């Protein structure tokens, strides 16, 4: 064994930086390195570049450029949106609504706010990971100041009914934030049409650099600063701008949103062939997430009787990069909170595998995974005491 080349199927974790993006960034490390706050001419180049990136980002979201604030990434944007709105609107109420399947950048921020006296409602999801708009509406109280629901889930790929959720928030005059880190480039976003007041994004999920993100803040939203200091980002986010990173984000979001339907069709075709092939050739397997309402590159599947980390190790041996919701890779003993929230039994959550396709992939990669994966699953099942117990013909009894 031993791989000839890397097959990267973990695009939801991060993406490679596209050469056009990297090339656009380079002059801002070496030539136009001036601090945008300075007065001399090379600094003006830096400032101009940030303005261009702001326009590119705004255009991708249907926002105005002065509603875009650059940050250090998705986690900062989520922290800023949630804490910023919470603290600025405390007098109006202390209730925040989110879902059980949010990214930890949202969940842990909400848990922190609970210690600060806020009340958080964690909405349940159905078996596909969908939040029910009717359930959201019922959860709203007089004290609700913020609703934060992710655009699309990073593990199972489920796309939430954002426009509907946003409309409910608007109707009740509650701010609506969405973590859209996974959605950029996969789904067309229009913050105005979808009633979104705040939106988080991160460049490294759409072929931009790590360490750069943005928060869209609709004009008029009451929000406190998170990072205090200098007057950058119109006095809302202190810190000398990561110029090259911001330039990269701008270029990357422009490229990622130039032809979303065309790009999505290509990725979806590969992903669907992968799903079909895996479900057809491997028994005792289930698709996690929604059959249609899912990110085009996302495939999340559970194989009964085996554990995820051992799968990843074998796949890595074949040069295939994937991830799992098993506890054994997370540093905790509980498997994925997302899979558990969909009602998947704990023991089956341990055997989950996430393959997320993107621009690093070709049809050939799908062929290789379809050839390798059944062998890996068989090898692990052959040494699993559960597989024998269950019997190869019968249904699951684990």
């Amino acid at each position, binding site marked *: 064994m031993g791989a000839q080349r890397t097959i990267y199927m973990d695009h939801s974790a991060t993406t490679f930086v596209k050469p056009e993006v990297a090339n656009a960034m380079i002059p801002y490390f070496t030539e136009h390195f001036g601090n945008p706050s300075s007065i001399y001419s090379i600094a003006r180049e830096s400032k101009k570049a940030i303005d261009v990136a702001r326009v590119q980002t705004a255009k991708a979201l249907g926002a105005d450029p002065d509603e875009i604030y650059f940050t250090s990434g998705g986690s900062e944007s989520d922290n800023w949106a949630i804490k910023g709105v919470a603290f600025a609107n405390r007098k109006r109420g202390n209730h925040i609504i989110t879902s059980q399947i949010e990214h930890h950048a949202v969940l842990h921020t909400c848990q922190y706010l609970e210690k600060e006296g806020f009340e958080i409602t964690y909405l349940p999801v159905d078996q596909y990971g969908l939040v029910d708009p009717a359930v959201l509406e019922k959860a709203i109280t007089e004290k609700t100041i913020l609703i934060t629901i992710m655009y699309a889930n990073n593990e199972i790929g489920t796309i939430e009914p954002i426009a509907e959720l946003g409309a409910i928030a608007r109707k009740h005059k509650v701010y609506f934030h969405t973590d859209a880190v996974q959605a950029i480039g996969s789904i067309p976003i229009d913050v105005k049409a979808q009633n979104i007041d705040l939106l988080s994004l991160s460049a490294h999920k759409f072929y931009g650099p790590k360490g750069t993100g943005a928060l869209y803040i609709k004009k008029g939203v009451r929000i406190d600063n998170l990072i205090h200091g200098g007057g950058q980002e119109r006095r809302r986010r202190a810190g000398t701008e990561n110029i090259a990173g911001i330039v990269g984000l701008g270029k990357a979001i422009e490229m990622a949103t130039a032809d979303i339907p065309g790009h999505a069709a290509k990725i979806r075709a590969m992903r669907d062939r992968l799903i079909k092939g895996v479900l057809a050739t491997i028994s005792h397997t289930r698709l996690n997430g929604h059959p249609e309402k899912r990110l085009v590159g996302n495939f999340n599947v559970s194989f009964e009787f085996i*554990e995820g980390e*051992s799968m990843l*190790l*074998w796949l890595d041996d074949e040069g295939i990069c994937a991830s799992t919701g098993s506890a*054994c890779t997370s540093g905790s003993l509980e498997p994925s909170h997302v899979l558990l929230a969909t009602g998947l039994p704990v023991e089956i959550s341990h055997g989950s595998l996430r393959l997320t396709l993107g621009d690093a992939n070709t049809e050939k990669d799908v062929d290789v995974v379809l050839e390798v994966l059944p062998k890996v699953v068989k090898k692990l099942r052959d*040494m699993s005491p559960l597989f024998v117990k269950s019997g190869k013909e019968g249904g699951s009894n684990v």
Partner: protein
Amino acid sequence: MYSDKVMDHFKNPRNVGEIDNADGIGEVGNPVCGDIMKIFLKIENNVITDAKFKTFGCGAAIASSSMATELVRGKTLEEAWEVSNMAVAEALEGLPPIKMHCSVLAEEGIHKAINDYRVKKGLEPWVEKNLHSHEHEDMTCQH
């Protein structure tokens, strides 16, 4: 994150399988916790002449089962009982702290198989002298 030895025992596990009419069988762990080990022992004249395993679990669980079965082969039951989880982990050139419970599971699996044999023979089961759960309290599955 894993030592070469762990990867070797994960990728080329020794003694995978079952023993027909095994003299002692020990199953430990829980699918809810993400690992189950089943240890099979063949015992002749108080000596373990064969040891096999089947494991559902992570890389460290599979490697620990493989190493534990290697370590107890050819040993008397008294000697095998003394093979500790630390011995398994050391033979694997170390395990990440969060994976130490896998070696504990291997030790418990061997103990359970030995006691299964003793009970079948009408002997008193031996008593576990050290409880590992204190050492790895935060790493112990509560299910």
